[in-house]
């Protein structure tokens, strides 16, 4: 789960990482109140999960109520790379002497945690990574050992952090590591991490991605849910506990297993079609899950044909077939369904479908055959 900046800052606060005081606003009126509470000059920041919002006009410095009003009116509803701004974060403007960068993530190559620190923080850090990679210092951390304050201090020194900020940066690094590990974040990043003229070091931004698998030990994450940027289809799928990603094509895809689902997208593409979505039923999917999947796909009016690709392992094909029969008795499908069943109990599954004699359901034996048939159906529809 990706957190918005304001949520990331709330999460940082749990680990004593210093940030500027501020608040959220969903309307122009709230924005003015929050700006007054924070004290002028204040910064009004768009809350979207996409980079480049500053360049898109999503961050404004305001000196009085009138400016706060104008900024909020401009930014709320602003479309930043397809993300429409619905919420603002407003905080007291910080005086900035220097901008640094700090992050923790997993280095899958080394199978160790990785700290990255740079004295060249700010909007162009990704460019720095390309043009001046030496400016970003890296330290691998074995999870058994963790990172000590002394190691953090050494890392900050090697990255060229100013003398007066060294202790502050080292302190933030130790706390950010705790946020990353104890907080079960896949990514904990501060850009920029600033030094103020008063010699204080604090986080001006927060980018946190939480590891959904660790939700069982973080009841506090509940507060972050319900405000994510899912579209309507994705929200419905989430309610049904399906692994779904909306795309723009015309072939609705249902498969069991992420690999097979990705492969199904590939094959549809190779035979000239486009996928409307990625949908992985997961392992051991029964009739109820299949039924939910068809329901979700059916809400997508871009879909002209549904392709169900199942290779039974834990998942049993007879259960899948029952799910299709069940679903079709309650849901009126808007488009035909092409089904490929293989693996555990495939013969039983195919028999259940054949016996039910369902209208608009086509059974194919192979993955490629099923993809071709699905794309033919789309093409026939287009030529009508």
């Amino acid at each position: 789960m990706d957190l918005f900046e304001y949520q990331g800052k709330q999460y940082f606060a749990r680990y004593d990482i210093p940030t500027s005081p501020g608040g959220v606003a969903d309307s122009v009126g709230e924005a003015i109140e929050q700006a007054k509470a924070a004290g002028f000059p204040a910064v009004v920041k768009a809350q979207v999960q996409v980079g480049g919002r500053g360049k898109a006009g999503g961050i404004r410095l305001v000196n009085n109520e009138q400016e706060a009003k104008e900024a909020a009116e401009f930014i709320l509803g602003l479309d930043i790379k397809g993300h429409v701004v619905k919420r603002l974060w407003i905080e007291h403007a910080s005086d900035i002497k220097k901008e640094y960068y700090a992050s923790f993530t997993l280095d899958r190559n080394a199978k160790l945690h990785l700290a990255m620190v740079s004295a060249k923080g700010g909007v162009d850090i990704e460019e720095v990574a390309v043009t001046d990679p030496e400016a970003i210092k890296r330290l691998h951390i074995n999870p058994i050992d963790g990172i000590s304050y002394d190691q953090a201090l050494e890392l900050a020194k090697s990255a060229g952090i100013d003398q007066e900020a060294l202790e502050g940066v080292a302190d933030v690094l130790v706390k950010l590591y705790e946020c990353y590990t104890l907080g079960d974040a896949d990514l904990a990043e501060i850009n920029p991490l600033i030094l103020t003229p008063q010699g204080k070091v604090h986080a001006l931004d927060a980018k946190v991605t939480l590891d959904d698998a660790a939700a069982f030990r973080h009841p506090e994450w509940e507060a972050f849910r319900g405000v994510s940027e899912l579209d309507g289809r994705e929200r419905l799928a989430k309610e049904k506990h399906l692994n779904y990603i909306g795309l723009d094509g015309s072939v609705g895809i249902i498969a069991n297993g992420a690999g097979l689902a990705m492969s199904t997208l590939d094959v549809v593409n190779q035979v000239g079609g486009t996928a409307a979505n990625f949908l992985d039923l997961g392992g051991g999917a029964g009739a109820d899950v299949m039924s939910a999947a068809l329901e979700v796909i059916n809400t997508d009016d871009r879909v002209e044909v549904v392709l169900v690709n199942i290779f039974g392992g834990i998942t049993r094909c007879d259960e899948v077939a029952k799910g299709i029969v069940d679903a079709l008795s309650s849901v009126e499908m808007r488009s035909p369904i092409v089904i490929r069943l293989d693996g555990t109990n495939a013969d039983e599954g195919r028999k259940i479908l054949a016996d039910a004699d369902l209208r608009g359901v086509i059974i194919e034996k192979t993955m490629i055959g099923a993809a071709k048939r699905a794309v033919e159906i789309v093409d026939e529809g287009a030529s009508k």
Partner: protein
Amino acid sequence: MSIFVDENTKVIVQGITGSQGKFHGLRNKAYGTKVVGGVTPGKGGTDVEGVPVFDSVQDAVAATGATASFIVVPPRFAPEAILEAAAAGIGFIVCITEYIPAKDEAMVFNVLRRNYPGTRLLGPNCPGILSPGKCNIGITSGDIALAGGPVGIVSRSGTLTYQALNELSLKGVGQTTCVGIGGDPVPGTTFIDCLAAFEQDPETKAVLMFGEIGGSDEEKAAAFIKENVTKPVVTYIAGVTAPPGKKMGHAGAIVSGGMGTAQAKMEALAEAGVHVARNPTEAGEIMVDIVKGL
């Protein structure tokens, strides 16, 4: 021959009294795998359809001489279960558990690497290992495999592992061993581990490798193949059409920047002399042709 397991491998099932553990443990036993015991704390002394249950892995090893463990427990208990097996001297651990937090995975991997270098972990979040006719540890359906070789299979995705077995078996081409390494961020066993073992195995004549987007294990495998593998390798990488930046199910399958894209992986593998197929069926067809020409 087979890699990592054979007909003499003695297996215990950690979590055998749970519904999944019982179902798959007994299914593995029915396949012919030497399932010699199970472990569930507090249930020692009982049995699951004739398979004795022990309180700890240590007790199970002492009583049965088990050398391998099949872990089927929920995510919050899996890390401890893996380390318990390693501490009891188990040399080969298969963990199918899905949704283990990445921090726990990284910790377990590094504890194994530092304290139990002789222990191999397969997974987590993998379908397991199957050597047709000899040993099946995991959730793969044994009846889609064909004994006798000569192909070794290694795959990240579970369902694509079954697809790979099926493509070959339908065309009468058997397998020596089929290894599902799983798609999590910190897998215990990698493509390279399997490629090295298949290269050493005299009965394996060619390797079918199914990868997917995310991470850089396929690129590393390509470099390894170029230097160390003399046997023909056929590959398919899932996710060519996956939109960048989207997380498609596997925690590992995250595309960031230009790294880890299907295109980058396919190019690296082709450059290493690997036959790169566009879909699983094509990969199977290429492999059948190679086996015919051996």
